[in-house]
């Protein structure tokens, strides 16, 4: 029965926000245009935008303007306010809109929110969620298309969630809101319309637990966010050639479930990381180093990274398609490590 219930990934996030706001009156949401200039203050009034992707549409009618707050275009101001509110008893979910805008509030994120608990000797909690859209694929050009999750993963004190399915999006959002640490929740814009099974009741996907999306014995492919479906498609192609590909989806990048990744590498003896981010100081590079450090003697082939090039995201559809790691690249890399 509930197996048949499907939602889009965006709908799953909406449902998580809705249910968590119902469950806990301290949960509030804020951001630029998350209501979007509703024309009326009457209860049940329709909002107009509901965020740039419409994910929060309808929440103001249910929860009112105190708990669903449009903000000025002042990212440092309202992200800082969300952090201050988190330290003093609320559980704010702040929407940064595109992750590319992180530079504006970054001091509040990495010098304040991420560090308060530690600097205060553990005597503060900062239960804030910062939502942001990531990813290329919609010709949004260099300032609206990056993934950048490596930057937040680099900062001690932050947690980072990168759902690749509607099921995980809901469970990770519920977990993020209930978590007492600051969590970056990154939504790949090309996955928002993807449909999948989502149970109606609230549930948690724990932060820090990877999932083996496809079991295999020949090669481990660790893939992040949108790259999970690319890796799965490549795995299908290779199955026809008799290669058994295991696909691991970290789901959260901080904390990173290193055990699941290492166990898979120890089993298969080969590792490829598929990452839409740029390659320097990236998750792909970090996971490669992890395997080199801790699973070196299990390796039967060089570790390979399939990533975007070290450039901004280009606007031209032709160039952008070349920028994003493709199924063909992943498949070719699997063949390469299998012949090593």
């Amino acid at each position: 029965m509930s197996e048949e219930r499907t939602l889009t990934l965006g709908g799953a996030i909406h449902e998580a926000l809705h249910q968590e706001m119902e469950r806990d009156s301290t949960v509030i949401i804020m951001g630029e245009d998350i209501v979007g200039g509703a024309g009326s203050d009457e209860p049940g009034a329709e909002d107009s935008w509901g965020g740039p992707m419409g994910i929060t549409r309808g929440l103001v009618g249910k929860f009112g303007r105190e708990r669903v707050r449009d903000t000025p275009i002042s990212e440092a101001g309202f992200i800082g306010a969300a952090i201050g509110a988190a330290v003093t008893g609320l559980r704010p979910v702040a929407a940064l809109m595109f992750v590319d805008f992180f530079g504006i509030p970054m001091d509040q994120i990495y010098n304040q929110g991420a560090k308060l608990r530690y600097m205060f000797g553990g005597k503060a909690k900062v239960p804030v969620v910062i939502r942001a859209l990531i990813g290329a694929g919609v010709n949004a050009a260099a300032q609206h298309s990056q993934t950048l999750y490596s930057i937040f993963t680099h900062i001690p004190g932050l947690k980072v969630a990168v759902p690749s399915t509607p099921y995980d999006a809901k469970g990770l959002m519920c977990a993020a809101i209930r978590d007492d640490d600051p969590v970056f929740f990154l939504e790949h814009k090309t996955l928002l319309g993807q449909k999948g099974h989502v149970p109606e009741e609230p549930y948690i996907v724990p932060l820090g637990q990877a999932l083996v999306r496809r079991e295999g014995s020949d090669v481990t492919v660790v893939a992040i966010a949108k790259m999970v479906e690319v890796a799965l498609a490549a795995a299908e192609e290779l199955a026809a050639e008799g290669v058994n590909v295991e696909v691991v989806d970290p789901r959260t990048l901080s904390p990173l479930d290193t055990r699941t990744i290492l166990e898979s590498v120890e089993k298969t003896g080969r590792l490829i990381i598929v990452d839409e981010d740029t390659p320097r100081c990236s998750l792909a590079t970090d996971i490669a180093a992890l395997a080199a450090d801790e699973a070196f003697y299990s390796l039967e082939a060089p570790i390979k990274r399939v990533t975007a090039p070290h450039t901004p995201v280009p606007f031209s559809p032709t160039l952008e398609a070349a920028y994003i790691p493709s199924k063909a690249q992943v498949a070719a890399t699997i063949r390469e490590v299998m012949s090593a």
Partner: protein
Amino acid sequence: MPRPSKELMLQMYRKMMEIRQFEEAASELYQRGELPGFLHLYIGEEATAVGVCSNLNDDDYITSTHRGHGHFIAKGGKRDRMMAELFAKTTGYCKGKGGSMHIADVSLGILGANGVVGAGIPMANGAALSAKMQGTKKVAVAFFGDGATNQGVFHESLNLAAVWELPEILVCENNQYGMGTPQREHQKVTDISIRAESYGMPGIRVDGNNIFEVYDATYEAVERARNGGGPTLIDCNTYRFRGHHIGDPGTSYRDRTEVEEWQKRDPIAYLKKVLVEEESVAETDLEAIDQELRDDLEAAIDFARSSPSPRPEDALEDLYAGGIRP
């Protein structure tokens, strides 16, 4: 405006003296090599912290600055655990993980000193939002200097505080210098309170060395904030008697006569004069208070000095909630 009672004035005197003594002792201990890190002394600005915080309840919120010891004591921080934090000991307010620039106690409503100029202001907005949404009648105070009023977050936060009608008091400690740069070289305005108008909130300028002016302006602002009237910007005109930090004598960019003129306006000496001349308090009674506080401070220093240092492995604790280690 009710004039503060004699009892309240004496309380304010004690607080100011607690701060002055703490700062002088910290300065000496630092120079003797007993304290690691940086130290930004508040000496000369005591009337601001105490005048403001005398209007606050224990559960109101403040955000502070790199020059934060005065705010911390005025809001109820105890000098023994503060001193222990400066000594980087486990008995310090932050278990030795924060130090002078990050000293905090959320249970006292003190959301931290801050190493980044202006960075506490948006967080004070958040605390005020919590207070407003939870219907607690608490208020939040953001302390910052004149230098911070050129930061983007100052302007963003004033706008947000006004548009959300937050119960907040924005207190500029205008000590005339951003590090060594005089105000005339970093902003065109002298009276920072005029910036309030452009964000749709009241602004007022007071003599920051006159605790009565600071107290009165804050009294009115706190009343307004608690009663749903939104935020107020207060510009307190004051002066840093010492340099920017302890390694800066503050003499290379300031005229000696300027410093001397301000020292004549010592905020503690002024309150003392009022107490003696207008409230008939005996000078010997004030000296007895000074002595009592000195003894208390000596005990605080002994406590800090004899407290244990953290173990190296403690570095991995306190990062995430629930005991998760990196």
